[in-house]
């Protein structure tokens, strides 16, 4: 029994692929998820959030609010023109823009509702909700910090006391007491959760997708489709190594076709299958979940083609650099899981801290998913530079990987047969 166990342990330690799957992949994924959920950065602190602010009021008071927001550890104010900021939100380059409307200073002085609006992309709801945690307390305390609280209180009390009957007056008095305590806590630097001092922020969604399309559905379709596509094209790439191991590659190489055509043939078949797989997944989402694609067929087709090209190139590249099927299996599992993790297939990007969102651009998944969002959520026109840029990134990644695959195929695989 002991001998059998020792033999199995010896075989286990000699099997690099098993070691990779047993130790390296789980460690890589733990690291990835820890970063993704902010665990390694301590209490989710992932650096200050860059908040675009459009100050249409342009007064000293609105300037003071901008300065206060900028002084927060959690925020960095990025002054932007409203139109420019909203365009950035619509194209997915920014989550939201804080608009300080004209009349802000007057409202502060008379204790009215502050004309402050957060115009945002619903696809970034979680980021926006987290932003509100920093934003609203600051707005709530703003009248106190600028010495306008008393005026504001007076106007608010006048409104509350302007009631017709005794019962309402009693209710107003109770509200006054509550309000006073709130103010007191505010002055002592302990603002309460009561945001009754005109600190509500008007929320306006800038992106209005087709009815039936929601962030979750698009994320599920795009994220899953691209991750599964990477797995299937890795399998297709392995067929090249099967050809090598089974001797058919040697036979192909003695046939009257240029060697590089063998690889090009693999690329072509991988592309066709990748396109078919993506189309099947989109069609399923349309039929099963009502994904609306009718008015986006051309754009979606372009995203599908570019994504299929980039993903299939990844499979062929893997096959060209690996020496055996086993090596491809180990490598592809590791790379695909990591790319899917950082690229937003496994965890939506809006859950991730800012620095993770920045490194997401290294992943094919990111560009593909953003392409799907550009078409189905943001409804960008086909000529939009942002949309074209994402397509170009996918095509560029695919071409780079294909080029490297050809080079490795010529140097390694052909000579090694």
């Amino acid at each position, binding site marked *: 029994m002991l001998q059998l166990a020792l033999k199995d342990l010896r075989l286990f330690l000699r099997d690099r692929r098993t070691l990779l799957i047993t130790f390296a992949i789980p460690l890589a994924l733990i690291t990835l998820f820890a970063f993704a959920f902010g665990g390694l950065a301590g209490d989710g602190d992932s650096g200050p959030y860059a908040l675009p602010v459009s100050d249409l009021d342009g007064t000293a008071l609105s300037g003071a609010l901008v300065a206060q927001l900028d002084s927060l550890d959690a925020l960095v104010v990025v002054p932007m023109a409203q139109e420019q900021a909203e365009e950035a939100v619509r194209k997915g380059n920014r989550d939201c823009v804080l608009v300080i409307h004209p009349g802000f200073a007057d409202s502060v002085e008379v204790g009215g509702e502050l004309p402050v609006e957060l115009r945002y992309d619903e696809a970034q709801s979680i980021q926006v909700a987290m932003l509100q945690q920093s934003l609203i307390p600051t707005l709530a305390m703003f009248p106190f910090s600028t010495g306008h609280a008393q005026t504001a209180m007076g106007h608010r009390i006048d409104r509350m006391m302007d009631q017709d009957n005794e019962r309402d007056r009693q209710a107003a008095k109770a509200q006054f007491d509550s309000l006073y305590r709130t103010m007191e806590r505010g002055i002592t630097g302990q603002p309460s959760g009561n945001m009754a001092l005109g600190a509500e922020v008007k929320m306006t969604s800038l992106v209005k997708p087709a009815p039936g399309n929601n962030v979750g559905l698009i994320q599920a379709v795009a994220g899953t489709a691209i991750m599964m596509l990477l797995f299937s094209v890795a399998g297709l790439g392995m067929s090249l190594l099967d050809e090598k191991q*089974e001797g058919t590659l040697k*036979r*192909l190489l*003695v*046939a*009257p076709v*240029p060697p590089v055509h063998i690889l090009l043939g693999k690329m072509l078949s991988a592309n066709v299958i990748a396109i078919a797989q993506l189309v099947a997944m989109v069609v399923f989402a349309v039929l099963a979940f009502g994904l609306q694609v009718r008015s986006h067929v051309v754009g979606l087709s372009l995203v599908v083609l570019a994504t299929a090209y980039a993903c299939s190139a990844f499979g062929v590249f893997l096959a060209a650099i690996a020496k055996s099927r086993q090596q491809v299996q180990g490598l592809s599992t590791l790379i695909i899981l990591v790319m899917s993790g950082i690229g937003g297939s496994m965890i939506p990007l809006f859950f991730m801290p800012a620095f993770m969102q920045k490194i997401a651009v290294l992943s094919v998944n990111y560009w593909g998913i953003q392409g799907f969002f550009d078409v189905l959520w943001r409804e960008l026109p086909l000529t939009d530079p942002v949309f074209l840029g994402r397509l170009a990134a996918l095509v560029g990644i695919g071409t780079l990987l294909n080029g490297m695959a050809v080079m490795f195929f010529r140097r390694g695989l052909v000579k090694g047969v």
Partner: protein
Amino acid sequence: MRVAGHDLATEPLACKQAIGVVPQEIALYNDLSAWANLLFWGRLYGVPAAAMRERAGGLLRLFGLADRGHDLVGTYSGGMKRRINIAAALLHRPQVLLMDEPTVGIDPQSRNLIFEVVEQLHGEGLTIIYTTHYMEEAERLCDRIGIIDRGRIIAEGDLAGLKAASQLRETVAVAYAGDPEQVLRQAAAFWPEVHQDGAYTHFLTTGGQSDLARIIQQSGEHGMDIRSVEVRGVDLETIFLSLTGKQLRD
């Protein structure tokens, strides 16, 4: 180097087109039928579509697989796979056929069929380069034989020429009863060239059957008790071993 009139350096594809290769491995797609495999390899060599079906059907009949042509190659026996492996190299009607150990690990019937096909193709004028470790195959099939050791051709020619060059001679191997050393002394008394190898006493001969009769007669006259007699001619295997030695190769 030129192949069928084409320069290998400047016309590699034309050279490849002139050659048919039967690799040692079964280089076929197991998940395709024999028919589909033949069509694939035929298309790769540019066989015209009109001729393809006729040629593929003819080859399946030639190799005795007409009734199994549409079965997946993965379901075939080793011998059947070997036969299709050869057929796939013939579809484009090459001028030179390279066969790398085409009979490894197959049943005697398939092996015999392959021999017959090779002889038929040779008879039709096809140049065949056949590599094998089975010396009897080379003796049966080849006009010219090259012996390769450690990657170099160490002897080349027809079988008769190789025999003559080897200077090896036929032996009569006799197993006698009794002490081998005493037997060798007795044999040396009536035969000029004799040596002992284990239980056998080897008489080097030049006269064929008449030498055999003389050895048996002399043995009787010297009171030697014969247990068995074996005439060992010079064949390709003995030439091969004499040229390459008996040391094992990696």
